[in-house]
């Protein structure tokens, strides 16, 4: 099992529903967020193109946060989801410094927090909160090891990219172009 997410940059309108759904579902403290919307405008007026991305932890297959953690608090769950065990985290922030996506932060209670791909929902057969609320169906979540899953099929048929793969992290969030 290898969980991944694909986000269709041609469907995403940047409404931030995914951000609010995550904050509600995961009781993210006020002033913090585990996912966010990036709008990247390129070109020169009037020849402009806009890419909208919903970004979060990339649940990297070669995660620098897991490597740099001195206590094994940051670890891979089954399916490759990167998680932090609160009772093992000492708050040294090595993982925060090691993440090229700046996806982590220190929770007001002291441990390091970030996107979990809503592992608690996934275990119950549900989709992550962000995916389930997306009004344009721009987000797809599933198992890359299952060749018949929706995500496997769409990644085979559509051109896609991941964010700074040159950082050597093998990200598991893909953007359909």
């Amino acid at each position, binding site marked *: 099992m290898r969980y991944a997410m694909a986000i269709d940059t041609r469907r995403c309108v940047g409404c931030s529903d995914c951000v609010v759904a995550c904050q509600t579902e995961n009781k993210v403290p006020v002033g913090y967020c585990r996912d966010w919307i990036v709008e990247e405008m390129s070109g020169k007026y009037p020849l402009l193109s806009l890419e909208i991305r919903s970004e979060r932890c990339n649940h990297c297959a070669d995660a620098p946060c897991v490597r740099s953690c001195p206590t094994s608090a940051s670890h891979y769950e089954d399916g490759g989801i990167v998680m932090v065990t609160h009772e093992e985290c000492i*708050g040294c922030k090595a993982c925060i*410094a090691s993440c090229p996506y700046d996806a982590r*932060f220190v929770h007001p209670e002291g441990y390091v927090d970030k996107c979990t791909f809503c592992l608690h929902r996934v275990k119950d057969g549900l989709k992550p909160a962000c995916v389930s609320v997306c009004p344009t169906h721009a987000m797809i979540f599933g198992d890359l090891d299952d060749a018949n899953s929706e995500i496997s099929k769409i990644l085979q048929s559509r051109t896609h990219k991941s964010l*700074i793969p040159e950082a050597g992290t093998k990200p598991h969030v893909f953007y359909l172009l």
Partner: protein
Amino acid sequence: MKEITITSGRMNPGIDPVLHAWGWEIPVYLFLGGLAAGILIFSAVYFLRGKADEYKFAVKIAPFSIPVLLTIGLLALFLDLTHKLYFWRLYTTIRWESPMSWGAWTLMLIFPLSVFWAASFVPDVRPGLKLPALAEKAINLLIPFRKAMAWALIVISVILGMYTGILLSAFNARPFWNTSILGPLFLVSGLSTGAAFTILLSKNEQERKAFSRIDMALIVIELFLIIHLFMGFLAGTEVHIQAAQLFLGGPYTAVFWTFVVTLGLVVPLLVEALEMNGYHLPAQLPAALVLTGGLILRFIVVDAGQSSRWLYKFMTHF
């Protein structure tokens, strides 16, 4: 042209707009760890070379500072932790891939070892001091092991000195840290500050002179490593070139080239060179400059690394 905006708003404390995971605690610890490593390496090396009496301060007296330096450093590290009550988790696992794990275990070894090392010199430094019988017995037990302790200290201190740099260079997410030069640079800087410590506090002029000579060599090596650091970056990828530009016209230019390179390295080198040639200048001046420069170097490197990044480089506002 590119304009990147986080339209949902992201202002995670400590992360946005520029990463600020580590404040003053980490550079203070890196400086003290490097200084302690430098002092211990000189002490152990000159002990093994039979110069314990010639360089009495460096070999026998300076080690008494180590427990104090390491305690302050460890306190700074502890203050930096945000989930403090769980700090003991560092010692329920060994993580080979994590430099921080290496550091935690190295400190666990070096702290007691350095206390034993210093304790074995109590009778030399304070002859005739009345000690409780038990302490005297313990010290007499330690003295025959000085040679073994010296060898162990050299190995562990080199690891301590190097790891303070490797801790940062292992983060490829921060281009300015991501250079293997940082390990040797921090080790040499630690040795240089260790030598400066002896120059500053030794009462023996011959010893001060000898350590000034050593310090000059170390400063030259340090300057050489700094040039290589920037050569490596400028021959690197775009993010590494941008990291170097933070110091070549960017916001760290003035503070780095003035306080670290000029006042922390070049001026002490010149003053020490003049002293060697018979000019009478206070030896404490270059030593104090080297120590201050070493501290500022750690602050700038820790800060600049957090300002260098891969993503969102064209971000205009949030």
